């Protein structure tokens, strides 16, 4: 098991470095797709299959397609490099160090005494069988029933995002109708 974990993490790191270093934007987009698939595998190892579904479909599928269509509008080459990368490097290093320092306070993975395992999760896990009349999936119960307001808000956010993209990017219906039947 450890072999798989370390292999996937090492490949994630290698892919991330490649995305940063590579100059060809088309290849960089492909590497972000690979990164998403690796993250999906990683989520599966962490026992989160629903997050893995989402990561594989959104990260590797839909966002890769959207980035490729953007690339078709802009062009495949990156703008020339700036001479000095000292300042960005400093900012990135400091931010990275701060993030790593922040993780030092985090509880260990799967620690049963962790705060989020103490409150309010156990009460939900214990109550959900009775409350939901035998529906076994606690995650769905929390998302759709106990936290129904939040999920309604999230759905509204997705809807708003879709409307915003339509308003900004969509061409008139008249122009799309004139398209030839086959490309």
């Amino acid at each position, binding site marked *: 098991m450890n072999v798989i974990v370390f292999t996937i993490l090492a490949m994630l790191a290698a892919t991330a470095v490649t995305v940063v270093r590579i100059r060809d934007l088309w290849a960089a987009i492909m590497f972000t797709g690979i990164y998403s698939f690796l993250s999906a595998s990683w989520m599966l190892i962490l026992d989160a299959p*629903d997050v893995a579904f989402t990561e594989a479909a959104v990260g590797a*599928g839909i966002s890769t*397609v959207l980035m490729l269509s953007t690339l078709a509008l802009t062009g495949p080459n990156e703008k020339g490099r700036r001479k000095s990368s000292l300042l960005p490097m400093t900012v990135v290093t400091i931010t990275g160090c701060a993030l790593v320092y922040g993780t030092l306070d985090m509880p260990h993975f799967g620690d049963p005494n962790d705060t989020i395992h103490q409150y309010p999760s156990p009460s939900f896990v214990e109550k959900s069988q009775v409350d939901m009349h035998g529906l076994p999936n606690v995650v769905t119960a929390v998302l*759709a*029933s106990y936290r129904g307001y939040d999920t309604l808000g999230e759905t509204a956010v997705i809807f708003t995002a879709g409307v915003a993209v339509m308003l900004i990017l969509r061409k008139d219906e008249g122009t799309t109708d004139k398209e030839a039947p086959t490309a």
Partner: protein
Amino acid sequence: MNTFPIIRVVTKLLIPYILLFGFYVQFHGDYGPGGGFQAGVIFAAGLILYGLVFGLHAVKRVAPPALIERCMALGVMLYAGTGFSTMLLGGKFLEYEKLNHHFLPGFLPHGQHLGIFLVELGVGLTVTAVMTMIFYCFAGRKRVI
């Protein structure tokens, strides 16, 4: 991309299973991993794959933009409507216990199960429609595929 026979054939073989898996994740989400959002993106990924291979025009015939933009709003309306219907039945907003009924028990879902089913369906509809619509908007800017 619609001149490569291998890609066309493999895509046609794959798409039914992708869509079926989307339905499975949607309707089995009460029991297994998954739910509306996951099902929505899987379903949209199937539609987008069809659009990539067979062209924007072909996928717009399967899922017309006019239908998609109505589904975007319909999903949110279904979710909020479930909340308001529980209010009309005398409960609080999204209080699924009020959806209990005694018509064909054991066959039709009721109570909490019916509420979760309806709101997940709303989420799935909205997510599918929004993802597909974003693809239409991006791909429709220029004839790239």
